[in-house]
């Protein structure tokens, strides 16, 4: 079965595919450079990869080994995997352009008509 990974997890996989087995420490160093992640963030993502069965942890030194290759990876569809448990709350805590709750197509159409009346 294909494993679905987020972009962040793909970043880790990219390194493993490119460099072969790499220690978590090295991955953290590389990603700090390229994405600005701190070490905790990188470890969180690596652990997620392990949990999804994409990476195997080997000792010593937390050596990461890719269990699947590029071809079997599928990009995760955001909405499917969004954490639904706390739906609706984050936009109240974080400043956001639009809230998380969605309008129906009909409602958007009606609003569009309202906006179209404006002069540019």
């Amino acid at each position, binding site marked *: 079965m294909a494993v679905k990974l987020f972009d962040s997890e793909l970043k880790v996989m990219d390194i493993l595919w490119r460099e072969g087995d790499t220690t978590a420490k090295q991955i953290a160093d590389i990603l700090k450079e390229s994405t*600005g992640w701190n070490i905790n963030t990188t470890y969180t993502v690596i652990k997620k990869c392990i949990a999804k069965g994409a990476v195997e942890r080997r000792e010593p030194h937390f050596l990461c080994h890719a269990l699947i290759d590029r071809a079997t990876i599928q990009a995760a569809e955001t909405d499917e*995997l969004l954490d639904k448990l706390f739906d609706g709350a984050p936009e*109240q805590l974080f400043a956001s352009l639009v809230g998380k709750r969605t309008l129906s197509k009909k*409602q958007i159409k009606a609003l569009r008509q309202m906006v179209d009346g404006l002069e540019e």
Partner: protein
Amino acid sequence: MNLIQMSIGGGTLILFTVLVRSVALDKLPKKTFFVLWCVSVLRLLLPVSIPSPFSVFTQAERVLHSQPEVPVMEFMQILMPADGQAPVLQTTSAASVPVLTILWLSGASLLASYFAIVYVNSLRKFRTSLPEETPFAQDWLAQHQRGLRSVQVRQSDRVVSPLTYGILRPVILLPKNMDRSNESVLYCVLTHEYIHIRRFDAVTKLVLAVALCVHWFNPLAWIMYCLANRDLELICDEQVLQELGSKGRKPYALALLEMEENKQRGFALFSHFGKLAMEERIAAIVNYKKRSVFAVFLAVLLVSGATTAFATGPASEDGSQVTPTNQNEPFPEAMLLKSEGGVVMYSGYMDFEEFIQIGLVEQIGFQPEAGDNVLASAVYYPNGLGDDAPTGFPASMCCLTVDFYETETFGHLWRGVYMAEFTTIDPDEFAKGWMDFLLNCVIADRDDSIDQDTKYA
């Protein structure tokens, strides 16, 4: 001032704000509501209020005071059972207050931990974002690094709409599936988020969440939380349009709708609430115009008026403590009800110094000394002592260290039982002004004062 009073005080202001908002949302600058919410939050969270004769609470008290005798009689029955043996202490319900406190605490901590979990989970998710490399975004960013805080623009496949997080190192997070080729939309999005950052909306949102956690039992606090969060967006929209000008209305509204449609690919979760919020915003953008001087004047008047009327506490007409004589004699003169076996009971107005002198010293020959324990219960009329009354012993006894014992409320009356320790016996330091309360004082035996707690528990 206790929590309930703070909640009522803040709630009144919230109610007023909601009313004004529903009538004049489109007519006033949106910042008006922001200021009103700020005052509401301060009133909810700060345990102080400035006494003002113009306060609605002053007016309310005047109405309440027209029939004070009835509650006194009710209280008397509770205070004075037939046997007359230190009755106050026996009738105090030991369980009622702690149960409420525990209930409040568990509600507050439950809500707080919910917010904390959401916050930490989201942050953890956001931190795995990747740098945004669109040249347009990079150029925009280079032009917007004026402040002390460095702003970052990043992208994530785990958010559905653009958002901003971080207070000291703010990050604008764009959804991965957003159309980067439409520069007009991108510009509107970045400007909107940038204004959120400049306005420190992240802090405001945090303070709102704290206020909600503390006042979770107050439905008005929930209304405030929702509406104030919505108003933050409206204010932000308004400010964006101030920068873009009237011509920016259409592209901005379209950008908003674009983002809304972007989410359609996900699970559609119809919500009347969401509909309202979005329609409110689009309508506000369509109707946006420069505020007239009159509207701004009206807003200032409204805010200052509301602050004076709702955010201040009750006070007397001359701003000082009320004496019964200038209040149409609404309270009975102090009357000695009982004096036996170390119990002195007065009803009505009484100066504390007078109580010490006449009540304790003359009636039972008590001379206060340092270290004495006095068990006293007092019932307050909501007058004169203002908001401070139910939080502790009357102001006139502040020279004593008073250990809180127990309190109970009967309607709007309140009774507290205290263990008061005399740390000073200089009578001059006692009362200034009147106490509107009924005092039942039991002077504990000086030799076994330590046992008082258990003796009457």
